[in-house]
């Protein structure tokens, strides 16, 4: 990593650490959401930005994990130390089942993941005796391990920040590994990868399950922040938004999905305060991104940097 990026990273870290003291609870809450949904978007982007698979079912893993934690904690008083891993395990197991969708490609993959997502939403919505129906599961406590527990939203923000940083570092290793390079190879030419000896479906399946595990972790962070979960968490719009956050921020990068989450959540908060049809504004943002900035904010930043740092070409 070059010095400029390291310096930028340290400044961002300092800003993130200072945020609750400088900006107050509203912004801290928004930043917590941005980190959680950024993590969900990052999980979607492992498939989208690296392997070239557009999944629209990641809300399923997110929600199943959140419901598992909520039900265990609220109804069975299971402690966080067991409930949180159980949530991740449940979401990951679901991803291991839904992973069969990697047998398809392109538009068929998109369609099958949409259908799978609706199955989970339907269960969350209709199996009221277990999921609480539309009301969901409420009164989820803050996480606590033994006598050490989170006592405020500010403390929870720091916990989320730490988890997200660890995930981002692990993700960085993963995408730079031979396995991660293999995913990019599959995205570029699956036929060539097969002729080079790769069982590409197995690679994609592994990526799908890993991605599901990361989405499940985001679900755990979400339910302890939100303190309740209802079928909205499993709904199609969440899956779509996660993918769009990655695209708006910069697909194929690590920081991009978090920036995208910031833009989407920030705009929604701001626009919805004075305009009822804020969804229409979000739609316009996405269309503009796809048309004029297909590489997202990270791509725009790269282009600007290239324009300003390029030495003037000698005249003829």
């Amino acid at each position, binding site marked *: 990593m070059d010095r400029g990026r390291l310096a930028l990273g340290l400044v961002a870290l300092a800003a993130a650490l200072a945020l609750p003291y400088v900006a107050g609870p509203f912004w801290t809450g928004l930043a917590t959401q941005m980190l959680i949904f950024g993590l969900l978007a990052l999980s979607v982007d492992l498939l989208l930005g690296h392997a070239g698979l557009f999944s629209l079912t990641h809300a399923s893993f997110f929600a199943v994990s959140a419901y598992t934690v909520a039900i265990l904690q609220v109804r069975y008083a299971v402690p966080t130390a067991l409930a949180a891993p159980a949530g991740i395990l449940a979401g990951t197991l679901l991803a291991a089942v839904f992973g069969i969708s990697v047998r398809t490609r392109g538009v068929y993959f998109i369609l099958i993941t949409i259908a799978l997502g609706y199955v989970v939403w339907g269960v969350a919505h209709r199996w009221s005796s277990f999921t609480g129906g539309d009301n969901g599961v409420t009164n989820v406590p803050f996480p606590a391990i033994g006598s050490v527990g989170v006592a405020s939203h500010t403390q929870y923000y720091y916990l989320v920040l730490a988890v997200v940083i660890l995930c981002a570092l692990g993700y960085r*290793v*993963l995408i*730079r*590994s*031979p*396995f*991660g*390079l*293999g995913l*990019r*190879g599959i995205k*570029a*030419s699956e*036929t*060539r*990868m*097969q*002729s*080079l*000896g*790769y*069982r*590409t479906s197995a*690679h994609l399946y*592994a990526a799908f399950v890993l991605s599901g595990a990361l989405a499940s972790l985001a679900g755990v962070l979400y339910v302890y922040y939100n303190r309740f979960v209802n079928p909205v968490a499993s709904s199609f719009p969440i899956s779509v938004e996660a993918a769009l956050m990655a695209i708006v921020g910069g697909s194929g990068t690590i920081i991009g999905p978090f920036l995208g989450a910031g833009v989407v959540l920030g705009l929604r908060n701001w626009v919805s305060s004075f305009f009822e049809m804020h969804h229409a504004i979000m739609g316009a943002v996405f269309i503009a991104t796809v048309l004029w900035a297909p590489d997202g904010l990270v791509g725009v930043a790269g282009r600007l940097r290239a324009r300003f740092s390029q030495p003037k070409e000698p005249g003829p």
Partner: protein
Amino acid sequence: MTPFAIEVGALAKVFGGLAAVDGVSLSVAAGERRVLIGPNGAGKTTLFHCITGTLKPTRGSVSLFGRDVTRDAEYRRTALGMGRTFQITNVFPELTLLENMTLAIVGTDRRKWVMHRSVGAFAEVRRQALEGLEAVGLAGRAAQPVKLVSYGERRQLELALALNTRPKVLFLDEPCAGLSPSERQRISKMIGALPRDITLVMIEHDMDVALALADRVTVLHQGKVILEGTPEEVRANAEVREVYFGHG
């Protein structure tokens, strides 16, 4: 006796009503250099796809050193020692040449599954990748993305990728397609210099290149083998002159 490197038995591939390959049988001895020739649409590339597992044949069988691989997926055949290049350059444009080579090198072993170490930590792979690029004259291009190098260099990379899967039998589908005469000469020299323990099966349109490299030549026409023999025999054959050159 030692088994043939490649044995194809009565292989056919039918698309809709059209038999692109129509009952081809051929045997290639270990270490042999076989060239397939034939006019456009003779079924050469389709035959290649069926042998290497890119396509499933409608009928017939394929074996590699006596082992029936007809039902094996392409990646399995690669692991067992088949390597191939594509007629239409099939490399990874967004990745650097070094990354392209890395994919080829780790593709046939377990290192392709490593998730917890960066590619850069595999010094051995890097060394091998640079050697592989050096062998086709691309060492100076290692750090460039493929989309920035010339067509001729991509063809060289195409060959280097196939060589670095450690093939026992190498299938080359018109390796010189679309190249200038000087590039053509360079690639055919490279192919000629390959170690003799690699069995070579090659599709080639250029008769001079084909006949200079080949131990034996198989002539395909309308999905069928119409002749097999030494380059001299093929050159002398009237039927070949008829279908291939279009004159007597």
